[in-house]
């Protein structure tokens, strides 16, 4: 008894692949990292007592968001890099592709699993981060109330408002979304690299390289566009960097958000869309590369 006819795009197949990938990744030691992150957060908050509250919140946010950014970036690269090689080595890929599963669904499913993992991690870390922030804010408000018992109500109100503004700024959530999108971009790019890489390590090393160059890409781009001096060789090199590498600087918004810069929604939306475009394009490239690959 065979199915009624092959569907070229099946969400349930992709869902099965994504869910399976997610399960595979979750049962790795990945989640022990979350524990370390949690400890980092709480530990950091405790020894901050000697600084003023503005300083404390700034450091707390920088550490938490910085840890979130680096953790998701590392996770995206390391988790994705071993997906394809592992399947090929264990020959499980034959059993999957011998089913009526098109190769693009296989790739989408794999990336989907990684994105699920990243989303889950980001949510967990954000929850913890907000909880700690909320707790410290409340402790400090209580302390402030004690210290300002002689002052006028407007002044007390102002002090409390300033404290609250230091703790939660509106840009935190958009900033975290951008962190997630940057990680998903890196995951898609890693998937692409892994389709033609010779080994797991190769993929990771190349991705680390791309990560650093990606932060310089905007400088290269400006340089190239503004026709500065420099020989032909420099021009070619700079053009190469500007065209081939992603501009990762665009996704580093949290530094400035923490410093208190207000982020216009339009800007955030554009950056988010760019992140989604990058992810889709790299996934497409992964398919082009994987499409004819001999297994």
């Amino acid at each position, binding site marked *: 008894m065979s199915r009624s006819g092959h569907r070229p795009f099946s969400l349930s197949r992709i869902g099965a692949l994504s869910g399976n990938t997610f399960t595979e990744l979750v049962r790795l030691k990945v989640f022990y990292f979350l524990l370390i992150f949690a400890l980092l957060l709480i530990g950091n908050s405790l020894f901050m007592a000697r600084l003023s509250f503005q300083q404390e919140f700034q450091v707390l946010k920088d550490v938490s968001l910085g840890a979130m950014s680096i953790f998701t970036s590392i996770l995206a690269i390391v988790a994705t890099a071993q997906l394809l090689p592992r399947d090929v080595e264990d020959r499980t890929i034959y*059993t999957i592709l011998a089913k009526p599963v098109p190769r693009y669904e296989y790739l989408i499913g794999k990336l989907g699993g990684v994105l699920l993992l990243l989303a889950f991690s980001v949510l967990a870390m954000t929850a913890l981060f907000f909880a700690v922030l909320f707790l410290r804010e409340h402790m400090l408000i209580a302390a402030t109330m004690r210290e300002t018992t002689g002052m006028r109500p407007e002044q007390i109100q102002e002090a409390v408002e300033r404290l609250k503004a230091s703790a939660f700024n509106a840009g935190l959530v958009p900033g975290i979304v951008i962190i997630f999108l940057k990680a998903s971009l890196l995951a898609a790019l890693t998937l692409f690299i892994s389709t033609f890489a010779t080994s797991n390590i190769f993929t990771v090393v190349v991705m680390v390289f791309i990560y650093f160059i990606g932060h310089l890409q905007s400088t290269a781009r400006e340089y190239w566009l503004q026709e500065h001096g420099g020989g032909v060789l420099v021009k070619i090199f700079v053009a190469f960097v500007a065209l081939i590498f992603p501009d990762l600087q665009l996704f580093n918004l949290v530094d400035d958000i923490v410093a208190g810069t207000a982020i216009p929604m339009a800007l955030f939306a554009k950056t988010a869309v760019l992140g989604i475009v990058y992810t889709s394009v790299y996934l497409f490239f992964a398919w082009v590369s994987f499409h004819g690959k001999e297994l």
Partner: protein
Amino acid sequence: MIEPAVAVNNLTKIFPIPFRRTKLVAVRDLSLEVAPGQVYGLLGPNGSGKSTTLKIILGLVSPTAGRTKIFGRDSREVGSREAVGFLPENPYFYKYLTGAETLRFYGKLCGLGGRELKTRTAEMLQLVGLQDARDRRLGGYSKGMLQRIGLAQALIQEPKLVVLDEPTAGVDPAGSREIRDLILDLKGRGITVLLSSHLLAQVQEICDRVGILAHGILVREGKVQDLLSIENQTELILEDATPETLAQIAALLDKSQTRLIGQRHPQTTLERLFLEATARLPEKE
């Protein structure tokens, strides 16, 4: 004309070797057909192109020249694999999944779901005798158990064609026997089986047709009986023959052109002896 289950037409596969001028010709102008309901054995030593041919039939590798079809559909179409199950050589599955979860995963990939998936999973586990281990992670399975779960996932969607690459390699005689029984059971249900092996004696008894590959070329092809029978010889097996009867037969033969070449006690096989001897011991998995 009934559509053959598998049709291979002038298949050639050349692998370029990186950094070297020479190329590896894995399969050279291969043509064969597997009729529906047959058990076909693709035999040959290691490196003869058996695995490559199977992979091309399954669309995992693309041919350099020629084409392959499954039930009339080109192998390069994804839909051609709707009714096909594949068990690769020495498979590993996802270690962290249990037996049941593994079957459910593959079932979903075939488009099964809901209650049907549940029923099929239970059926397959029963068929391969792994119900007791269904909730144990595959990381704890023995090689024989992995082979059996592999067979179960190949059959999960009730395929019309099952492709097995070295199904009995590295499996102990008892497991090997079970797999061969299973193959015959599949044949009984009308399922076509295409298998590859280099353990010739083991597959001799279950294949209807064989093709023998050497260095990518099909050197022999046909029905097993036809290939193996020594045309001009006849075997008679007698039970409780007395020496007088034997003398009479010899005298009868003397008068004709038939020549008596040999006379001896037929032998059982070492395999049967082994299985009989070990059957008394409880099986441990």
